[in-house]
């Protein structure tokens, strides 16, 4: 919100420099965003000039403070900050006929439309939508009736005979500095009042109004209106229109109509200053794709007591500019006057919440200066917020006003003392750190990606579960909670590949989600070289055993040994990994992860270059680290030497190493302490469909050294088992 210092000074006598004011207000809750000196803005009201030019302060006004979207609103804040008297607009331009106390029979605001919700009343008390009898204008020139008092609670109209012409320099300079284009005196006056008092006004050409009459009503289905921007609009019944006796002439709170626009030949105008329901203005503006200064003000909650003040100011400006004269007085249609609510402010609660005591005199001064009504009460005060403070609902809101204006610099800079046993650290943090260190040591770099991903990216990883979708995603890219960390990692691999990087090792520790809950996992992605490029070593691309070895190392941090098995059809592992280079990892017969080469179609969906080979893995850290890790128990060292025999066997190449190992273990003689497959050979000399397996068998007894004969017999026994069960042939 841009305000000019010279204009502010019409409301408060502030001597400080613009920089000082900006700094001080920023500390009090109204942040200065920009500051400009305008040496060319020298015209002042009343025809004076100021050679020093002017200062433009640009404040960042938060959505809950629409009252600061005006010179008067900002000036009121400045007055409170500096403890100066403020020239209240309602007193500068007192509307004739106002000042009477509200009729106690008047209905309090039950629907909270005006920012005055009353605690304890039933919501949605029916607001009668009966037409209110037209209020005859003075001179009878313009009857005004409100037919939708819930959508338009107050309508103030006035007539003036005018001569359209340019505005004086002090008006045009001020408007231009604040980003508003000057057009002609009457339109400029409405914009000037908007900037000065914060209330939007509108002007109609009186002679274009059928009747003449002003009828404030809901639009009828199918009614149309060409707005000031020249566009024809089709209206719906939830929109409010300002109509004449025949058809709509303006969209209430949003924009005027082209047909009733004030032109250079207009001789008599109707000024409008009204209050429109925020939700209705917002819905209408959104439905029509319109956003105006007026709609923005009404959406945030306008001041229902402002229309007469704005109107009086506008009529005074008409006179001052010599643009014309008012015809009759203003017509104030306010069928259901609102009564503001009071809020209890407890003295102890102020100091309890803020952590500092604010002297009573300061509480009263601050709130009174801001326009609140303050009455002493038992434990503090009963405070009545002014009509323009739509953000004031309960005690804490008042306490914030008191706290920020008294100044947070009064808060003692102490560290709060807490007497409490420290909470136990979540063991998962230490656990994740251990896993992280192993991954880093293995050459992986840590990635962080989003927990929400696109539905298409999640699909291959959900398995038999339904995806966990968000009810209100920010966009399609963040529609689903990730069922795996791999989509994000593959995306990262893709990004790095597309920026020229060939060798990539990335890991991520994070949470994945399913309808059954969430678990914390570690995922790995690896493409390119298996070991960093160096002239001394052979260059070799990563393979399955590199990845499964990395996973094994991570599992060993938790004293776990994972058993790799061929993935079952229908599992995630089976659908995302290349068959033959895929393993589901079991811990005590429960699947806790998988590892293998990523299916090319999934890589392609992430724009990974074709023909890239990516190895991926994911393990459930919760499962790895949960439960009892077995108590260690040392075993004595063997007292007698072991005997090693190597055997080479021809087996079907479709046979997995796991099957071979499993068969041996199932029928192993007691002396067999280890089996290691140390070679696997296909090609020259090996028949089609077969593979030569080299096994190293280690035999050892705890009681004595085994004889050669015993070792031979045991070796034969093993070979015999493999031959009869698996058709192996010894070479």
């Amino acid at each position, binding site marked *: 919100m841009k305000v000019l210092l010279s204009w502010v000074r019409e409301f408060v006598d502030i001597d400080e420099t613009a920089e000082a004011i900006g700094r001080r207000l920023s500390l009090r809750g109204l942040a200065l965003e920009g500051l400009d000196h305008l040496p060319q803005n020298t015209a002042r009201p009343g025809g004076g000039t100021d050679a020093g030019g002017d200062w433009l302060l640009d404040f960042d006004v938060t959505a809950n403070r629409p009252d600061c979207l005006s010179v008067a609103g900002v000036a009121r804040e400045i007055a409170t900050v500096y403890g100066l008297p403020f020239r209240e607009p309602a007193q500068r331009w007192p509307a004739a006929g106002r000042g009477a106390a509200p009729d106690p029979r008047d209905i309090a605001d039950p629907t909270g439309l005006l920012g005055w919700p009353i605690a304890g009343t039933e919501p949605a008390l029916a607001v009668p939508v009966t037409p209110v009898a037209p209020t005859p204008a003075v001179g009878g020139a313009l009857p005004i009736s409100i037919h939708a008092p819930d959508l338009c609670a107050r309508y103030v109209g006035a007539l003036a005979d005018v001569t359209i012409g340019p505005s004086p320099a002090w008006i045009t300079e001020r408007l231009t500095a604040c980003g508003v284009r000057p057009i002609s005196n009457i339109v400029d006056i409405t914009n000037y009042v908007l900037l000065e008092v914060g209330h939007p006004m509108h002007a109609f050409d009186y002679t274009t109004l059928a009747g003449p009459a002003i009828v404030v009503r809901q639009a009828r289905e199918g009614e149309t209106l060409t707005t000031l921007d020249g566009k024809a609009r089709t209206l719906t019944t939830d929109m409010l229109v300002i109509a004449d006796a025949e058809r709509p002439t303006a969209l209430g709170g949003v924009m005027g109509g082209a047909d009733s626009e004030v032109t250079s030949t207009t001789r008599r105008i109707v000024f409008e200053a009204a209050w429109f329901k925020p939700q209705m203005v917002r819905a209408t503006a959104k439905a029509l794709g319109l956003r105006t200064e007026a709609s923005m003000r009404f959406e945030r909650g306008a001041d229902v007591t402002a229309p007469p003040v704005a109107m009086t100011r506008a009529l005074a400006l008409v006179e001052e500019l010599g643009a014309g004269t008012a015809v009759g007085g203003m017509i104030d249609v306010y069928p259901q006057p609102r009564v503001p609510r009071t809020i209890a402010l407890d003295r102890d609660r102020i100091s309890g919440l803020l952590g500092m005591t604010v002297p009573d005199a300061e509480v009263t001064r601050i709130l009174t200066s801001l326009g609140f009504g303050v009455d002493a009460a038992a434990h503090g005060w009963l405070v009545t917020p002014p009509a323009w403070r739509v953000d004031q609902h309960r005690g*804490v809101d008042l*306490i914030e006003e008191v706290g920020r204006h008294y100044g947070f610099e009064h808060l003692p800079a102490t560290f709060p003392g807490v007497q409490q046993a420290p909470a136990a650290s979540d063991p998962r943090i230490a656990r994740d750190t251990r896993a992280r260190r192993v991954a880093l040591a293995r050459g992986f770099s840590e990635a962080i990606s989003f927990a929400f991903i696109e539905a298409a990216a999640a699909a291959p990883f959900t398995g038999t579960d339904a995806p966990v979708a968000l009810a209100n995603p920010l966009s399609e890219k963040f529609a689903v909670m990730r069922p795996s960390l791999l989509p994000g990692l593959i995306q990262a691999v893709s990004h790095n590949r597309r920026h020229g990087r060939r060798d990539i090792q990335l890991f991520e520790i994070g949470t994945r989600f399913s309808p059954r809950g969430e678990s914390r996992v570690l995922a790995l992605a690896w493409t390119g070289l298996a070991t960093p490029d160096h002239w001394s070593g052979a260059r070799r691309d990563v393979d399955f055993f590199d990845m499964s070895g990395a996973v094994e190392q991570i599992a060993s941090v938790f004293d776990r040994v994972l058993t790799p098995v061929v993935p079952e059809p229908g599992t995630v592992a089976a659908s995302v990994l290349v068959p033959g280079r895929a393993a589901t990892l079991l811990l005590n017969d429960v699947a806790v992860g998988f590892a293998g080469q990523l299916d090319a179609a999934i890589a392609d969906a992430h724009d990974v270059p074709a023909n890239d080979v990516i190895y991926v893995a994911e393990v459930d850290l919760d499962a790895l680290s949960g439960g009892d890790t077995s108590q260690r128990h040392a075993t004595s060292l063997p007292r007698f030497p072991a005997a090693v025999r190597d055997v080479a066997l021809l087996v079907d190449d479709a046979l997995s190493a796991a099957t071979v190992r499993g068969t041996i273990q199932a029928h192993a003689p007691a002396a067999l302490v280890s089996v290691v497959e140390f070679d696997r050979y296909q090609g020259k000399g090996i028949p089609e469909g077969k593979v030569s397996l080299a096994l190293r068998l280690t035999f050892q007894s705890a009681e004595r050294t085994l004889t050669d004969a015993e070792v031979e017999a045991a070796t034969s026994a093993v070979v015999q088992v493999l031959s009869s069960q698996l058709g192996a042939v010894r070479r």
Partner: protein
Amino acid sequence: YTEPSAEVDIRCIRCGGDGCAMCKRTGWIEILGSGMVHPAVFEHVGYDPNEVTGFAFGMGIERVALLKWGVEDIRLFYENDLRFLEQFGR
């Protein structure tokens, strides 16, 4: 979600408080938001705001890192480009 609320600013790291494009010529950069938990929040989760008060604060850790190390674009923290990650050692 908080009332009263407070914001903590640090002196602009680029201009030291003189005013520049980074701090929109104010000399200050917002780094942290905080406040007393709003009673409506307590009511919503079943606490009596007359019995308990709460203090909340938060700052974007990426933003602090960005300011401290002069990272040009906050998205670099999520793109996982190794040319960025590898600048930050082990």
